[in-house]
């Protein structure tokens, strides 16, 4: 701890802090330009000049670079200081007469006109060097630097030409105080243009995310991109988020982990997958930014979304007409034959929101409305009352006419084709089983029904149990269902799992294999055959032994036993042989 006084005020500071930091912390204003909290101080713009009354280096010094010392006495607004700043701001204003930030700062010091002749009125760069430091110190790309001297001094890539060294991270544009740098890299531009996607390389997945912690998009994050493109040579690029995070919660070293857990029951809740509407070309998804799917509309209408919940078209207008097309990819022989069960209701909810917030004409193009849940039918009626227009007839096609969207459909009510010009189209896509469901099924030894979702043991009586003991299904991995149904289904699965665990014992099927020890010759043919390692070899008695608790009764060992002594309970050789005789004994 050292004690110093600023403007006569005695302050405590820590070794190594700068005068600027201490002053800012105590609410004492010192103007800065080239200073940036995540960049090393440079003192190049000299705007933070203060007067040192007593200290190791008396006189005018830059506060951003001057470390505190015992008994230091500082004046931040002494006449000398004011005079110095006026000179600096005068020069800056003369260089960049039309940059609002500079104009404002100058005005504070009573300068309204550039005191010196201006070379180039369009100049925006004040040569503060923040961008250069960002590119070097943070991004560690070293793509830009100062070139030339004196009046010709400027910032840019070598020879002012495109450079591969630049990774288009955009860090320079972020740190530039005067907006002097523009990103022209295509990919970056797209990245920034994406309306509904994440807005930074580090973000909270969704406003309702639990736990509510940000994640780093390693494809966008400067640090990870640098690590990748330099094959791990540069691993400490940027880290700005870590510098500003006072909790020190940012951890770049987190890795995917594979954990081995011994469990007594497994609940498979691997959920569903969003269908890709682009696979149904008639809806032109992906060809126009205002053709959304349900999820995207959800994001758009979300208060925490990019538009703060305002429903706007991609060019920022309030839509005058919105069409919701039901059953996209569901109840469709070219996609999924099944009904996804949730779309009708979420379409109506979204229509309700759209109507409420935009007052636009909202159309629902449906085949049948399936409002089967508690209060659903009532909600259906309410939305109708609110003036949402329900047209019975599948949305056949979405086309662009002169940049405007047109939905073609048939109104089966009046039996006429229909053409709706709209500003926004929402495709009510349903639910697909995960594309890798087969892998999951194999992992847990469960099977899948024709629709691709996991198969329950019995459609009515064992709707969340599977054929594999101790493995249960919860939610949309078994079939499309909405939230309440999912909660019910999952709770039941959880309860069943708990039942299994609390009982501490399992009921096994009676079809197990049994080896009469007195007959076994110990050839060990069966040993390696059991997928459940239920067969062990008793070295003492030289016989193979079946652990009936592990045995699932497939009978593979029974069929393999060369001495024919393994008994497959309830499927014995005798039982099967007499079946054969009986079947073939009777005349055809």
């Amino acid at each position, binding site marked *: 701890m050292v004690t110093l006084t600023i403007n006569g005020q005695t302050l405590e500071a820590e070794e190594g802090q700068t005068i600027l930091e201490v002053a800012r912390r105590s609410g004492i204003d010192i103007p800065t330009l080239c200073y940036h909290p995540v960049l090393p101080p440079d003192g190049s713009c000299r705007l933070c000049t203060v007067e040192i009354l007593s200290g190791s280096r008396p006189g005018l010094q830059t506060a951003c670079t001057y470390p505190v010392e015992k008994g230091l006495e500082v004046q931040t607004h002494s006449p000398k200081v004011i005079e110095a700043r006026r000179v600096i701001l005068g020069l800056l204003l003369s260089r960049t007469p039309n940059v609002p930030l500079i104009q404002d700062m100058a005005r504070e010091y009573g300068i309204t006109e550039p005191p010196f002749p201006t070379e180039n009125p369009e100049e925006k760069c004040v040569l503060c060097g923040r961008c250069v430091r960002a590119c070097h110190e943070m991004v560690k790309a070293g793509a830009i630097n100062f070139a030339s001297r004196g009046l010709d001094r400027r910032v840019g890539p070598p020879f002012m030409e495109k450079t591969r060294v630049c990774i288009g991270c955009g860090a320079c544009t972020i740190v530039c105080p005067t907006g002097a740098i523009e990103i022209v890299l295509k990919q970056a531009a797209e990245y920034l243009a994406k309306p509904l996607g994440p807005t930074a390389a580090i973000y909270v997945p969704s406003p309702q995310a639990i736990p509510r912690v940000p994640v780093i998009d390693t494809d966008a994050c400067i640090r990870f991109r640098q690590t990748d493109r330099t094959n791990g040579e540069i691993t400490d690029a940027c880290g700005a988020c870590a510098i500003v995070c006072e909790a020190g919660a940012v951890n770049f070293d987190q890795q995917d982990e594979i954990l081995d857990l011994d469990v007594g029951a497994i609940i498979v809740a691997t959920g569903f997958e969003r269908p890709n509407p682009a696979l149904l070309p008639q809806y032109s998804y992906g060809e126009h930014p205002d053709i959304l799917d349900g999820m995207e509309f959800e994001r758009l209408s979300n208060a925490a979304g990019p538009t703060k919940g305002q429903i706007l078209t991609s060019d920022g207008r309030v839509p005058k007409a919105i069409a919701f097309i039901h059953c996209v990819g569901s109840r469709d022989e070219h996609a999924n034959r099944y009904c996804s069960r949730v779309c009708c209701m979420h379409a109506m909810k979204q229509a309700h929101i759209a109507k409420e917030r935009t007052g636009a004409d909202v159309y629902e193009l449906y085949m049948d409305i399936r409002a089967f849940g508690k209060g659903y039918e009532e909600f259906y009626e309410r939305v109708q009352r609110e003036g949402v227009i329900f047209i019975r007839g599948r949305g056949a096609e979405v086309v662009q006419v002169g940049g405007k969207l047109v939905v073609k459909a048939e109104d089966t009510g009046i039996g006429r084709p229909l053409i709706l010009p709209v500003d926004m189209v929402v495709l009510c896509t349903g639910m697909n089983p995960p594309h890798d469901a087969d892998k999951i099924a194999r992992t847990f030894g469960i099977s899948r029904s024709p629709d691709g979702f996991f198969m329950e043991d019995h459609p009515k009586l064992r709707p969340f149990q599977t054929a594999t003991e101790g493995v249960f299904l919860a939610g949309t991995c078994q079939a499309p269902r909405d939230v309440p149904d999912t909660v019910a289904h999952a709770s039941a699965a959880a309860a069943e799992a708990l039942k299994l665990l609390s009982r501490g014992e399992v009921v096994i099927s009676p079809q197990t294999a049994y080896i009469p020890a007195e007959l076994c*010759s110990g050839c*060990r043919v069966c*040993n*390696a055959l059991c997928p459940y390692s239920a067969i062990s070899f008793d070295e003492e008695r030289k016989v193979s032994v079946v652990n009936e608790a592990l045995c699932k009764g497939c009978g593979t060992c029974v069929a*393999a036993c*060369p*001495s*024919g002594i393994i008994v497959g309970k309830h499927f014995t*050789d005798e039982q099967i042989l007499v079946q054969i005789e009986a079947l073939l004994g009777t005349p055809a």
Partner: protein
Amino acid sequence: MSEKPKLKLALYWAASCGGCEIAVVEINEKILELDAAADILFWPVAVDTKYDDVRRMPDGYIDVCLFNGAVRTSEQEEIAHLLRCKSKIMVAFGSCASEGCIPGLANLYSRNGIFERAYLTTPTTDNPEKILPQTRTPVPEGELVLPEFYNTVLTLDDVVPVEYYVPGCPPQPHQIWAVIEAIVSGNLPSPPAVVGAGDKTCCDECTRKKGEKKVKRFYRPFEIIPDPETCLLEQGLICMGPATRSGCGQGKALCVEANMPCRGCYGPAPNILDQGAKMLSAIASVIDSNDPEEIARIIETIPDPAGTFYRFSLSKSLLRRARV
């Protein structure tokens, strides 16, 4: 034993190689005990007795008839019937009488095929007029006859009821003696039953170290020099031991002791219906692959399933013979 009337014994062979008789002779010095304990009424191999004597015996006069050899001709079938009716107890003695043994392999072919090979197409055959043996042949002096040669090799119990079976090719002398003692002392189990053999499989007697079995390819006996301590099957040699009844060795499996895989001469293990099918199942099960192509490749290394898995038991197998 001398008090009670001496046991009346008969031995006969049908379609057999004679090994069973030699095996009986190999009880060596015990042959004298046998002589003391039993009157051998009929044993064409070693004792002079005329068929007439047998023919004149009252039915059931013989206490025990040890009948070896399969039934391949009309003549053998008739002898079987005669001895059956003269004997209280009929014993299928040896692999041929019990399961058809190696002669049963002929069931993979037809009588015609055998005749053609034997009398027409063997390289040294001299048969310009394409003569085949006939059941009746007129000669200047009269007529000569041959018994009918069946198309299929039958086992004894195919043609007459049998009380006991003594497996083995041949039955091992120590087992033969055990059976004779059982007969003499009247300690036979209730028929029908297998006597003179173990009630497990060869693996039970085999002294080799056995582990889990996973086979990547099978070898023929001359292709490798097997480790003398380890189970032959684990080394890729097809060994019939696991599906074969124990009893050949006294505490060791004879062939395996000589580093050669078992071929199954003691017949099907006690609890199985079809020795070949069971061994096939076991062999296939230990193939170490799940890939159809590789499985097919591995199975290519088993050149002769029928002749290997049914080496001794074809006549008693489920299919009994091939369709030709």
